[in-house]
């Protein structure tokens, strides 16, 4: 199929087309149908699949994770750092479960890989932090408090109260970046 | 109307100061911009003297067009570069010039002060001009009656100017062929 310039007669004059354009824009002003989502008050409806901040699912206050090391292995960003420990009943559990959020690309592969349905991605996206930190297990765990079943309530619709994750204020343990995760230090 | 005398002296001193800068500063860009200030002062003096149209023209043509051209050329030749910092070639010439010009200036002042203006005055007194519709209108009608021939001649002058500059700026096709 050939695309061609079509050159209607009117187009030879600047003014006609200019007025068409002006009409289109002024229509927008008059109708004023804004599409803006006024973010802190209104939110877009993200789907269930939205890949946001991680949390560790737990059942009856015990986290599902058995420190099987699948997620750190599969993570393409290499941003999960787990140290396994053993509980009294010989069950393994993560003593340390750090995620370098600033390295994570929210690909969801850890969730996909987890055989215990432990690590999950919530749909919280407000994660901005003023310092480069990794988040510790306690932080991932704390999401438990939100819901008995271990799910984070999904934020839906316009006008929902923001569910901010404010790192320093939440009094959470956040640590310096894992040296492995930090880049080579070069300076001028 | 002492205020006007005050303004005259203000403009005059500005003009002299800036024209000295124009003549003596090394950087041609500075020269050009101070020349613009001189033109403004002149426009002010014209206005004080009641030559309103001339005053407007002074700004439109001198400040608004001629100096634009100067500034363009300075920018174009990158005349800010050190190679352009040229003042007098010879100190002797400089001193001689100062002496001669200063002397001539004093002589002129003396002459102006001690000679009377011609007693013959024209018909256009201030009130007369006002009655005829103001400086602009009077000047305009003069231009198209008494001074018609010079006016028509200027068109030829401008044409010559156009042809001349274009010829200078653009080499003739023939010359181009020769070159290649």
């Amino acid at each position, binding site marked *: 199929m050939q695309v061609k310039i079509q050159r209607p007669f009117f187009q030879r004059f600047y003014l006609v087309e200019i007025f068409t354009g002006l009409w*289109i824009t002024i229509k927008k002003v008059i109708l004023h149908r804004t599409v803006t989502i006024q973010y802190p008050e209104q939110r877009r409806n993200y789907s269930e699949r939205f890949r946001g901040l991680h949390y560790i699912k737990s059942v009856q206050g015990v986290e599902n994770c058995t420190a099987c090391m699948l997620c750190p292995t599969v993570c393409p960003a290499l941003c999960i750092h787990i140290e396994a420990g053993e509980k009294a009943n010989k069950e393994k559990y993560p003593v340390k479960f750090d995620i370098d959020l600033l390295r994570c690309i929210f690909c969801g592969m850890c969730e996909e890989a987890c*055989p215990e349905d432990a690590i999950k991605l919530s749909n919280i996206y407000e994660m901005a932090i003023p310092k480069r930190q990794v988040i510790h297990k306690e932080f991932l765990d704390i999401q438990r408090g939100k819901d008995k079943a271990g799910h984070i309530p999904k934020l839906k619709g316009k006008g929902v109260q923001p569910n901010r994750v404010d790192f320093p204020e939440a009094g959470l343990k956040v640590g310096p970046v894992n040296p492995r995760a930090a880049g080579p230090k070069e300076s001028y | 109307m002492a205020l006007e005398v005050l303004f005259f002296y203000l403009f005059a001193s500005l003009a002299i100061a800036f024209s000295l800068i124009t003549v003596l500063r090394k950087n041609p860009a500075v020269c050009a911009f101070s020349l613009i200030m001189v033109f403004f002062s002149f426009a002010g003096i014209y206005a004080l003297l009641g030559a309103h149209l001339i005053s407007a023209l002074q700004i439109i043509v001198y400040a608004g067009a001629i100096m634009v051209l100067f500034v363009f050329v300075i920018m174009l030749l990158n005349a800010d570069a050190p190679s352009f910092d040229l003042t007098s070639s010879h100190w002797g010439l400089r001193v001689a010039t100062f002496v001669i010009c200063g002397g001539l200036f004093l002589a002129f002042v003396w002459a102006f002060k001690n000679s009377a203006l011609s007693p013959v005055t024209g018909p256009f007194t201030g009130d007369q001009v006002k009655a005829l519709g103001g400086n602009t209108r009077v000047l305009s009608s003069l231009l198209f009656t008494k001074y018609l021939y010079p006016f028509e001649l200027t068109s030829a002058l401008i044409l010559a100017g156009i042809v001349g500059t274009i010829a200078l700026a653009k080499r003739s096709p023939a010359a181009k062929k020769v070159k290649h």
Partner: protein
Amino acid sequence: MSETTKTSYPLYKEADSRAAAGFGDRFLVTPDPDDLWEDSRVIINLGPTHPAMHGAFRMVAKLNGETIEKSYCEFGYTHRAKEKLGEHRTYHQFVVFTDRLNYCSALINNVTYAMSVEKLLGVEPPERAVWIRMACCEIARITDHLICVGIGAVDIGAFSFFLYGFHQREEAYTLIEKLCGARLTTSYTRIGGLMYDAPVGWEQDCKAWTKKTREVIDEMDKLLTNNRIYVDRTVGIGVADKKMCQDYSFSGPSARAAGIDRDLRRDEPYMFYDALKFEVPVGSQGDVYDRYLVRLAEIRESLSIIDQICDRMKPGPIWADDKRVRIPAKVDVYNSMEAMIHHFKFFMKGFEVPAGEAYTTTEAANGELGFYIVSKGDTMSHRMRIRSPSFWHYHALSDMAQGQKIADMVATLGSINIIAGELDR
């Protein structure tokens, strides 16, 4: 094809009207070159943070007045070693890197990558997966073209136009996000299948979206296509003719704008494109305006393709029936030991791809996107070469811009839609 591009006008003479686009001038005299002196040339550096260079490219141009006399392009400012990473990440992990190639249409990259590994493995994804992949490709193509057309307009100063298109792209992101949970970096495909099945009612959403998009495209069309200023700015600008297209291995819309009637979806049909009805818009001159028209026409074609796909999509499995690549369902993992072991092996080590090599291409939004994978039988590739269309198009920029104004260069660059991610890889 829609009315606007199909209609021909009886009084329309192509060559003449193109000449008349400028101010046809009886007094036209070819300017003589030595009316300027040699060192009045200015060397000006555009980029890498120049607004016209979209953040990551650089052009150094020798200007004669406003005209670019000679220029050279530089890039590499976003080089991220994806090819090297292909040798250090498993085939399963590598899909996240394909998102970051042409990030305006990440889904096409995902699909192409999956296809190329599947080719080496000899795995066939099931029908539903293929349909969904196709729909994804077309949505991605539209988002890509919308950005390109919009950015092209911004470069010429029409900012509002860009935002109209951009909103529709936002809506497309909603669709994509519903599908895979991310807006831009989708990582949607898996070797032999998909990350998720399409959610219920997704087809309907798609169709609603195509309907709305068509209206928006019409509006954009009205605002720009016949705008005299826009036409004057684009016709005859940044011409890449057929010869140049061959020299620089142009593909995709940029080549089609020059009149090269080639579309891999039709000429080397992969997936189910041969079962669909669509047309391939072709331009004639290969200038900025043609590229714009071709892209607009392609958006319309893609919209109709999406409609057809949505009609033909049927429920079914989304995973290939091949144990090597298949990620076991979570329920199986909890319940069966065998699945558990497989699951562990899959994620701990990844699957091995038999030795061999293949070069797989698809028609991406910008042109021929190819993955040349050499496998030595490992879980990671031996060589992961990505053939990106932008690389070849960008190469031609200094040729295309030669003798044009800098403003034209900006328009040209916008119209060939160079994406830094796939240019630098």
